[in-house]
């Protein structure tokens, strides 16, 4: 079939309708014109185009639709050789039924609208029963009256494209399914995890609650604004008031009226600053008794931007508080009575001096003015009176010394031990030579005590060692041992010794073991020593054996050690 024949309108029956969309004007380019000329005159051009660019061509008589010509390529596309096909009914029969209807509908639209190009996608059943997708485009040719008489159709195979598209869709669907599956799995896993976590949390919460409710504490929680939202059973049991009546700010009614305002202010301040709350106050017990509690509350950890809830606990500190108060009162009472005692000792000793002076002076005056007129018995009386007055005078001065030995706080005391011992020995020098005592002495370190006190103590110990001597030549050994941050001074004698039952008593005021006739002394000396030593954070004690001698020990802090501690 020649090209010129194909493009020439069927004589008498059909006319080539020029349509803008399909048939262009003859190109102005010379080569374009030449090509058009070839198309007009040479069927080889038509054949080339048909074979290279199209996958089949059919030409159909619309006045007799059973007549149709279709080319080899179309049949090859459908799996038939040239010999097998060639019949009109076959092509139509190979169309999918619903596509046949669509093709017919498209033809009707084209018949009705001369401007329309036939264009639809059709499916054929290949000879091997696979599907062949074809884009079918065509042109309706009309006769002189404009009646459609022929349909020229072209096929372009896009089965490959369609298969790719289907494959893509399938892959997409599959992917989608897989994604869905994975999402579902993930969701299920998460749900399972969450459930397990939740169960764990519930267990933990239950355990914690059991723990909290087993503690000897009143536990509670509040909202970020301080409104109470949980009170432990202990609280309810303690106050004897149902939890529901105490939530919010109801608990405040159980606080002692004297503490309430202070507690409210402290609590509001803690809430405002989100700082831990720690306050002591009294809470009313079910029987109306108020007991002291220490209450601590902390803001619970909360994510950024979320206000913290509070967890609080109140522990009963009533006993401690009570003890503290008792201790404070006792200490104050002791301090008072101690101060009173010192004041009393001072005033008593002072006021005792006046009458004493009168007695002593007149006894002296009596002896002075009338001594020559008195007999021996009168002189004896006067001697006793004078001795009593002397003794009284010593008591009074000792008592004064004792009452003056009041701590001077804050002052760093420092004594040259050796100098203090020198002075002490000097003050007992007369007694030493009188008793022919042998004294062995050691160098003493610098000690944290005022030097006058240390001298006084050493003097007391030395004179005791001399006064309570045995019937042998007195031997006194003063030695010193450094023991860590302190020094222990020992004053050992070979005197009469002190029986164990008396050893504690001798440090008490006015306690004497011997009559004043046998041994001088007022019973104040060792009490004063103890007071002076203890005032300097030291200790004094003794070891003694009756008939063998006594060793007094004085432990005092060393100056260097004291400085280290204080700086």
């Amino acid at each position, binding site marked *: 079939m020649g090209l010129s024949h194909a493009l020439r309108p069927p004589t008498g029956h059909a006319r080539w309708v020029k349509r803008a969309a399909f048939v262009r004007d003859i190109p102005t380019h010379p080569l374009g014109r030449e090509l058009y000329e070839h198309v007009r005159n040479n069927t080889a051009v038509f054949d080339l185009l048909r074979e290279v660019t199209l996958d089949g061509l059919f030409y159909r008589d619309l006045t007799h639709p059973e007549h149709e010509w279709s080319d080899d390529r179309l049949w090859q596309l459908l799996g038939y050789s040239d010999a097998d096909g060639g019949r009109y009914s076959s092509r139509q029969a190979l169309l999918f039924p619903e596509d046949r209807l669509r093709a017919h509908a498209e033809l009707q639209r084209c018949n009705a609208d001369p401007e329309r190009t036939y264009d639809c996608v059709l499916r054929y059943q290949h000879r091997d029963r696979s599907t062949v997708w074809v884009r079918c485009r065509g042109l309706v040719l009309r006769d002189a009256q404009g009646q459609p008489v022929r349909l020229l159709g072209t096929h372009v195979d896009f089965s490959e494209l369609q298969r790719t598209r289907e494959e893509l869709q399938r892959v997409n669907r599959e992917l989608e399914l897989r994604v869905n599956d994975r999402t579902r799995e993930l969701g299920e896993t998460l749900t399972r995890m969450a459930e397990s976590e939740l169960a764990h949390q519930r267990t933990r919460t239950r355990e914690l609650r059991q723990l909290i409710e087993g503690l000897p504490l009143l536990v509670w929680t509040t909202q970020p604004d301080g409104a109470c939202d949980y009170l432990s059973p202990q609280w309810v049991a303690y106050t004897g008031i149902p939890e529901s009546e105490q939530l919010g700010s109801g608990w405040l009614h159980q606080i002692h009226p004297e503490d309430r305002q202070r507690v409210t202010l402290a609590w509001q301040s803690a809430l405002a600053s989100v700082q831990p709350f720690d306050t002591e106050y009294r809470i009313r017990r079910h029987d109306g008794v108020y007991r002291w509690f220490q209450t601590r509350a902390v803001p619970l950890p909360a994510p950024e931007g979320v206000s913290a809830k509070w967890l609080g606990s109140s522990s009963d500190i009533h006993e401690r508080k009570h003890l503290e108060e008792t201790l404070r009162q006792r200490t104050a009472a002791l301090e008072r009575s101690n101060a009173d005692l010192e004041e009393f000792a*001072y005033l008593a000793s*002072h006021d005792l*001096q006046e009458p004493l*002076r009168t007695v*002593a*002076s007149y006894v*002296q005056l009596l002896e*002075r003015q009338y001594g020559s007129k008195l007999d021996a018995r009168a002189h004896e009386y006067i001697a006793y009176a004078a001795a009593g007055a002397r003794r009284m005078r010593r008591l009074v001065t000792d008592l004064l010394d004792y009452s003056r030995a009041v701590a001077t706080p804050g002052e760093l005391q420092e004594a040259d031990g050796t100098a203090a011992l020198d002075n002490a020995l000097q003050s007992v020098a007369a007694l030493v030579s009188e008793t022919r005592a042998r004294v062995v002495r050691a160098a003493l370190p610098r000690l944290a005590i005022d030097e006058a006190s240390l001298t006084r103590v050493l003097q007391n110990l030395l004179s005791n060692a001399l006064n309570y001597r045995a019937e042998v030549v007195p031997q006194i050994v003063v030695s010193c041992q450094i023991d860590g941050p302190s020094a222990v001074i020992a004053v050992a004698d070979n005197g009469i010794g002190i029986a164990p039952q008396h050893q504690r008593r001798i440090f008490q005021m006015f306690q004497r073991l011997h009559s004043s006739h046998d041994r001088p002394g007022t019973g104040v000396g060792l009490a004063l020593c103890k007071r002076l030593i203890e005032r300097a954070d030291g200790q004094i004690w003794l070891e003694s054996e009756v008939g063998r001698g006594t060793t007094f020990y004085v432990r005092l802090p060393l100056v260097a050690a004291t400085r280290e501690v204080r700086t």
Partner: protein
Amino acid sequence: MTGPARRLLCVEDNLGDLRLLQEALEILQLPHQLEHVGDGEAALTYLREAQAGKHLWPDAVLLDLNLPRKSGSEVLAELGADPRLRQLRVIVLTTAARERELLVGPQHMTVHFLIKPLDFDDFLGVVETIDHLIRS
């Protein structure tokens, strides 16, 4: 030991002490004349009356600190506040170890502080000191 006699106002509630002073003056053969009042208030009354010419003006006042009705310190303060009375020579006699009290007289006034000793022989020494002070 003798010299011109001085007039002394002794402010002392303890008659034993007064007598002791008299005895000491006698033993030391000091001719000073003693006037005596028993408390602080009486002392001030006496001195104001002396100002008014009712008594002879004393050369010195021996003042005990521990006095009834008005203490020695209060008497000192009132004397110091009076331009004429503050001219008086005042010797305070106080018992030993009164160190808690401030041994300082009022401004613009010369006050001597002497300790009453426990021993009579020592007391004689104190009285000799008083004698020196009131003669100077």
